[in-house]
């Protein structure tokens, strides 16, 4: 009898606590559904329509028409290629550079470590517009500091129009992206390396492991979850490169810096082709999801 009362009370307690937990979750759930799930569904739905502002026959169902068109659209394909170039270059560089910097600074004394953290994190917390304006000045064709130094040192004979030349524009964008992307990974790696189990390191040292073996066999497996997180966020951020393009090149010259995100914006908000823009959004989301899944899979196997 007494046991039955306890069971009932226990169930009641669990029910209440579960209800409370859901109530606590509710605000963020409502936001998540309202601002992520519903727009996502609308995006997929609209991508099957010719939804263009100002067209007489608005929202005509065209099935996969937008998807077929975008894979025949030379500018989209160029934007896709540029986006992949940005991802392929920036993700490994960000990860390797931030791991290297973190390995060098993580066991320095607290004050010095704080200074380095601050230096590398500063571009992350500085407004992207401010950062971009400074870079725009540095790249300036007429009196930018890169041309000034290049000519001063004799490396350049004439000024280079860094952002106005197809050969350099995308590389210039990637360089800015790198400087604004390494801050967070460095902070994360410093923290992860600081949390590596020291007893394992000491045991390996006693067994005669060299520095490379220490890192590869002991530290690397322990910081793998952090690496995976950094890989995923850097990949997503690189895929979503937009503000730099919008502020610096508008996708030019001759579409050499167009990215999928910028082209989505251009199609949706300049040409008012919402259906087409949404179709590109869906394709971009699929690419990001597939790449993230591969990264998870590879990291899990390691």
């Amino acid at each position, binding site marked *: 009898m007494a046991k039955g009362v306890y069971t009932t009370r226990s169930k009641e307690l669990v029910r209440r606590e579960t209800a*409370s937990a859901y*109530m*606590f979750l*509710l*605000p963020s759930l*409502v*936001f998540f559904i*309202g601002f992520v799930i*519903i727009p996502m569904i609308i995006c997929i739905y609209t991508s099957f329509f010719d939804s263009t*502002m*100002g*067209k007489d026959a608005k929202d005509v169902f065209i099935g996969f028409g937008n998807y077929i068109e975008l894979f025949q659209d030379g500018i989209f394909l160029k934007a896709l290629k540029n986006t992949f170039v940005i991802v392929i270059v920036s993700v490994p560089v960000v990860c390797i550079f931030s791991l290297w910097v973190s390995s060098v600074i993580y066991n320095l004394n607290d004050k010095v470590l704080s200074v380095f953290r601050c230096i590398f994190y500063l571009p992350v917390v500085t407004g992207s517009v401010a950062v971009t304006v400074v870079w725009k000045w540095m*790249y*300036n*064709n*007429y*009196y930018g500091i890169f041309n000034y130094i290049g000519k001063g040192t004799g490396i350049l004979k004439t000024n280079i*129009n*860094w*952002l*106005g030349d*197809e050969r350099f524009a995308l590389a210039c964008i990637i360089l800015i992206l790198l400087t604004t992307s390494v801050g967070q990974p460095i902070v994360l790696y410093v923290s992860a390396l600081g949390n590596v189990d020291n007893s394992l390191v000491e045991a390996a040292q006693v067994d005669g492991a060299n520095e490379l073996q220490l890192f590869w066999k002991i530290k690397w497996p322990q910081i793998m979850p952090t690496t995976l997180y950094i890989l995923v966020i850097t990949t997503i951020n690189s895929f979503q490169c937009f503000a730099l393009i919008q502020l*610096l*090149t*508008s996708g*030019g*010259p*001759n*579409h050499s810096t167009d990215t999928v995100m910028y082209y989505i914006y251009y199609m949706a*908000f*300049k*040409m*008012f082709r*919402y259906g087409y823009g949404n179709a590109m959004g869906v394709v971009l989301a699929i690419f990001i999801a597939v790449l993230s899944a591969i990264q998870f899979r590879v990291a899990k196997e390691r």
Partner: protein
Amino acid sequence: MKKLLLTGLTLTAAGMLAACGGGKAADQTSAAADSKADTKQEGASEAAKDAAEVSLWTYPVGKWGDSATVDGIIKKFNEKYPNIKVTVEYLDYQNGDDQINTAIEGKQAPDIVLEGPERLVANWGAKGLMVDLKDMFEKDAASDIYDPVKAACKSPTGEFYEYPAFMVAHCMAINKTMFEKADALKYLDLDTHTWTTDNFLKAVQAVYDSGQQNVGAIYCVSQGGDQGTRALVNNLYSGTFTDKDHTKYTVDSEENKKALQAIVDQAGLNFDPSIAGGDEITLFRNGTLAMSLCWNASQQTNSDNGPAGKTNAGDEIIPMLFPSDDGVTELCGGIWGYGIFDNGDAGKIEAAKTFIDFVCNDETQVKESVKASGFFPVRPSVTGVYEGTETADAMKLFEEKFMPSMGDYYQVTKGWTTARTEWWNMLQRIGAGGDVATEVATFTTNANAAAAQ
């Protein structure tokens, strides 16, 4: 405490859910208002003047982008119409279109917007989003608005989607000191502020030969200030951007091809896909460039960085008409005015018209409204706007020498948004070595495809 917390969370969630559903409710309200709008129209006038709140979104047209100036104008309006409250949103040309388009999609479009026919008539008006202002044009005050201005405010189907307030003719400018140093002033007619195409090319060559590698820039990173590059190309050999009826784009004419090729071949004129019109002005003012293609009266009288009419280094700036082979320059015009978004509320529409009528037609206000823009009135009966001001002489010069050369207002041609984008993309390709004939053909095909839609 726990109950209190839960109650709070429940209320928060309920509030958010209600907010999510608000859009539909608003739609229904709007739809209901739509159906009643016509019937209410007649009696709305008085009601509007009784009490109404209208929103004004303004692009930075001179000091119409400056809150102190606009607040002053609204204060004067409220002295006459105390029951109409006007709230203002200031837009910029970088993001303004996006803000308005997003607002339109969210059914939150402003009541009044200050801009030109390319947006009010050819874009939002053509999409059926604007109120026909025909009744305002039937008033006495509108009777002497210049005919070309009236024509620009009118849609091909006869609706007026803009009530014009001020206008200007865009021109170019040179750094007198640099031209003097290069002995190139002899190629300019400083009395009429004109030059022929041959003399223009000779002058550029002379300035280039004097050591100034960057004489002028064909800026093309985006559409900002593109009226300058269009005017240069069209005037050099008397080409046109569209046909007279504004039904198709004519950039692939022999005259335009010849002009573009002349620019490509001319040393000192450099295609620059990293800057827009605003950047070019900065480079001109700081002495990097010897000429600007993105000039007008407002730039000439701007004293933000130093004395008006001077570069940052103190060199004299001479405004010039664009060079032409036949002596007839057609300047690209800017006509700014007010449009009203059809938000389905007859009271607000009437209140918006009252505001527009006040700033454009009220005898005590109209000069101040024009002066705030830094441009010129759209009616000959409004005179002496800048009398007694520091800029009076410069404005008189522009009024006499430049405004009469205002050309065809072709920016209302269908497909204009696409054509503008195609233009700077075309310049980028030509600047990168693309064949002029091929690139103008691509431009014309794409722009005309948009015009035909």
